[in-house]
């Protein structure tokens, strides 16, 4: 009688366990695992993947940068030489006396007579043409008047274009000069000479873009090497230098019809 009572109780308990407890426990564990493991892991995964990608990129960049820097250390003398060359053609400061000396020297060596030489500062230019460009540089603007023959003028321009430091012709005009028998043509030029002061800092995580072995860079350096350097210490004291007070000097083009010559000049091209 007692045994049969116990059997009934165990059977009921077993049924209750099978019927309710196992599914309930499974559900509780499922919810706990889902809420505390699956959900946070799933949510964290994209962030971690992104973080991993960032770190991988950073590591790759740093490796690349270290490689470049080690190469630059190996070729330190070349880097120094190239820096000197670049600093000669694109100087860090205005260095106006040296610039005017160079312009005057190029003109006189080309057979031209310098009749006017003045300068202004503070113009801004940029390599891309956009003045907000980070590579913006400053300009010394030179107004120059020279006199001479056409061949001399052509030589002057060729010398100017291959001179170190860099001088670019912004605008020019020339007319037959009837008032001066010693010169054939009166030439007026506005020249721009860029200068750029750079003061970089070491930024560990940013890559160094300089590649001294790239074709572009080698071509640039070879071009600079072919330019002639004019010693700024040789100053011609006979040239009167005038500093124009206005910081912004606009080149003026006189209408050519108003300055039409009254006498027929000799042919310059024949």
């Amino acid at each position: 009688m007692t045994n049969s009572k116990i059997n009934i109780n165990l059977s009921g308990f077993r049924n209750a366990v099978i019927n309710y407890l196992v599914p309930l426990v499974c559900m509780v564990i499922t919810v706990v695992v889902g809420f505390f493991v699956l959900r946070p892991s799933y949510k964290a995964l994209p962030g971690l993947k992104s973080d991993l990608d960032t770190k991988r990129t950073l590591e790759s960049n740093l490796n690349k940068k270290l490689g470049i820097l080690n190469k630059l250390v190996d070729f330190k003398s070349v880097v120094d030489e190239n820096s000197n060359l670049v600093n000669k053609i694109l100087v860090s400061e205005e260095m106006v006396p040296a610039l005017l000396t160079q312009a005057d020297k190029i003109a006189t060596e080309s057979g031209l007579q310098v009749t006017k030489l003045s300068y202004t500062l503070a113009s801004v230019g940029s390599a891309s043409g956009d003045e907000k460009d980070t590579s913006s540089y400053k300009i010394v603007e030179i107004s120059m008047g020279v006199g001479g023959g056409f061949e001399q003028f052509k030589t002057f321009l060729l010398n100017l274009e291959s001179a170190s430091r860099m001088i670019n012709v912004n605008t020019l005009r020339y007319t037959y000069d009837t008032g001066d028998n010693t010169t054939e043509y009166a030439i007026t030029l506005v020249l721009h000479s860029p200068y750029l002061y750079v003061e970089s800092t070491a930024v560990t995580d940013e890559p160094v873009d300089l590649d001294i072995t790239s074709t572009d860079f080698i071509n640039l350096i070879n071009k600079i090497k072919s330019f002639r350097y004019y010693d700024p210490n040789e100053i011609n004291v006979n040239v009167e230098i005038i500093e124009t007070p206005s910081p912004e000097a606009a080149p003026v083009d006189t209408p050519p019809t108003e300055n039409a010559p009254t006498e027929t000049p000799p042919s310059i091209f024949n």
Partner: protein
Amino acid sequence: MESVNLIPSEERDEQTKTKVVKFSTTLTIILLIIVCGVGGFYFYQNYKIKKEISSLDTNITKLRTEINNLSNIEINARNLYKKSSTLKGIFDNRLLYSKILINLQESTPANVIIESVSFGLEDTINITGNAQTYNLVQDFSNMLLSKDLFTEVSLNTVSLKGNDKGIDFFVVVSFDSKLLHDQ
């Protein structure tokens, strides 16, 4: 012929109940296994990624230290790069006016005299000169146009001077400034 179910209704209820219980138990166990499996997979992925990140962090710290030791050469390199890239931009954009003079010289026939040259807006040159005949002015124009550099020649004024002094002319010549860039 119709079949007759002789199983009592209590027994049938019990069988149905048992089936439902078995099904729900199996379902929850399968669900648990799936959740545990997927959860474990994501947990392992996180663990693996965190371990890799930790390894990368160590490597990055090491690389940063090495790079910091080369800060002097880095500053020199940055200065050189900035100046050289600016220079390249200037070279690419600057106009070589000597090319204009050379082309102008080559395009000028004998007995045509260039008296003045000035540069106008939008890549134009204003040229005044003197020629012996009208044909020479036309020749000058044609020779200018035969050059790739000059794209258009506009003859603005032509005036005959007396006493065999020829013809004064004023032309506006358009040029392709791209051809004046450093090659």
